[in-house]
């Protein structure tokens, strides 16, 4: 494991400085994000919440380097991001496994694209998949797996390239609610144990509170930072933090939920 704790509070792992993002089309321009600045410490788990269309996914695409901001900079380990880097792993809303590749071949996709040592990547992928309970499915095809299993493969694919920073874009939104809760526990446990710096984007307030140490609220379009809440629970495991499932039953949970609910200004139309 790369030591991601060396940075500390003094030099943030991820830093966003005055990010602006506009989309252009013949009909006009859309301001997706406006003046976004925040930083994430090494090993920190931050959730970003906001309503659909507030630019949450855009924010992750900017951090990952697959989109370039209209203005502002993204820094990772103090260096400006100009394209996708190996330090960042990005987990999308759905697994998007390639149906023509086996589970193992899917899991090593990132390593293959990055031109890394394939044998080493395969060994690592096998280990990850086995740890996630998929050891007997290495040579199966994606269509033979359930939604939860497929998303675990997607996690293995993301972590196989050994990123320091993991971006999660509503990674459980395509799953049924039980699988969703179970997988949230599993993924959080894995990411905490490996001390990954994690940025989770979601519109699910409960998911944000239960998984993260800090919740950033984005306003409606153009997305701006509205507030930044540390999430603390009195009870917890050895690390001092409850699992997402425990957090949902913690006494502090409702207070956080109500605060964030009001911040989000949810208006149901119609």
């Amino acid at each position, binding site marked *: 494991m790369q030591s991601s704790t060396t940075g500390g509070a003094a030099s943030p792992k991820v830093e966003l400085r005055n990010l602006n993002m506009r989309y252009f089309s013949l009909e006009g321009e859309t301001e997706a994000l406006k003046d976004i600045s925040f930083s994430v410490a090494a090993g920190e788990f931050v959730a970003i919440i906001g309503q659909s269309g507030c630019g949450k996914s855009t924010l992750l695409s900017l951090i990952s380097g*697959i989109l370039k901001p209209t203005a502002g900079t993204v820094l990772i380990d103090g260096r400006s991001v100009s394209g*996708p880097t190996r330090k*960042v792993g990005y987990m999308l809303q759905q697994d*998007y496994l*390639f149906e*023509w590749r086996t589970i193992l071949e899917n899991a090593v996709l990132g390593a293959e*694209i990055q031109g890394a040592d394939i044998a080493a990547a395969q060994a690592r992928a096998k280990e990850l998949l086995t740890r996630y309970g998929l050891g007997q499915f290495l040579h*199966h095809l994606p269509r033979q797996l359930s939604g939860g299993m497929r998303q675990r493969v997607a996690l293995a694919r993301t972590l196989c*390239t050994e990123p320091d920073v993991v971006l999660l874009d509503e990674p459980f939104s395509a799953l049924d609610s039980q699988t969703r809760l179970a997988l949230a526990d599993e993924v959080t446990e894995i990411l905490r144990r490996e001390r990954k710096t994690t940025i989770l984007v979601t519109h699910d307030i409960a998911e944000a509170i239960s998984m993260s140490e800090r919740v950033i609220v984005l306003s409606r379009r153009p997305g701006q930072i509205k507030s930044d809440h540390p999430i603390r629970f009195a009870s917890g495991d050895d690390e001092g933090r409850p699992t997402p499932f425990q957090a949902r039953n913690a006494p502090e949970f409702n207070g956080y939920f109500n605060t964030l609910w009001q911040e989000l200004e949810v208006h149901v139309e119609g």
Partner: protein
Amino acid sequence: MSKVERFAIPSASVQYREWLMRERRGRLTVRTAQVAILVVFLILWEVLPKAHIVNPLFTSYPSALWPTFLELLKETPRQASILTHTWFTVFATIIGFSAAMVLGTLIAAALWWWNDLYKVLDPYLVVANAMPKTAFVPIFYIWLGATLSVYGMSLAISLFIAILMIYNGFQGVDPNKIKLAQTFGATKGQLLTKVVLPGSIPTLIAALKVNVGLSLVGVVVGEFQSANIGLGFLIQYGSQIFKLNIVMTAITILAIVSSVMYLAISWLETAVMRRR
């Protein structure tokens, strides 16, 4: 791994066995009907000319085909064997659709790579595809000569539809799969070889299916005009000397050739799709 297996009950219930029987009977009915249509067609073709309800000079009849076939099998100094004719037609068809698939894939890849190129060429491709290519048979004969014009027509008739189909397949690849590859820093070449091409295999097979039939059309039409060999030539020749036996034998062989090629592609499709 199928879901049926998982819930299969060891001892089948009476209802299940009845259901199975009904299924089998249904399938048998369909097969019987299919065979019956062919048999009725052949009987009518045999009986109507023999009873002089239609002129046998115009239609020939099935029982005359086999003797004609045997006669055409013989190689004479003036006349090649019908097997040679068949082989030339099949060979030109294989060349035609193979060239259309390879060129079509390359051109579609180029259009995918340079989107502006596609935007510029789009109207020309659409018109080229809509053009009746057979209008060029005489011109191809002048330009390319007797043999090459047949290959040329076979390629021309299938190339543009191949380009359009394959390009549409490339466009149809899930953009999220492309985004996923980009998160790992994939280059454009990697997107093409690792995402777009393997993701378009079903489209490539669909294009192949269309092209095999079209190439055969191109070859036969080309042979009408220019060749002195091939089934198209034989049909043309037979009709000129008013020997419908020859024409009908050649057409029957064409029907068999296209069925075999269709079956070959279905087999290829099953083999490839088993991995999906």
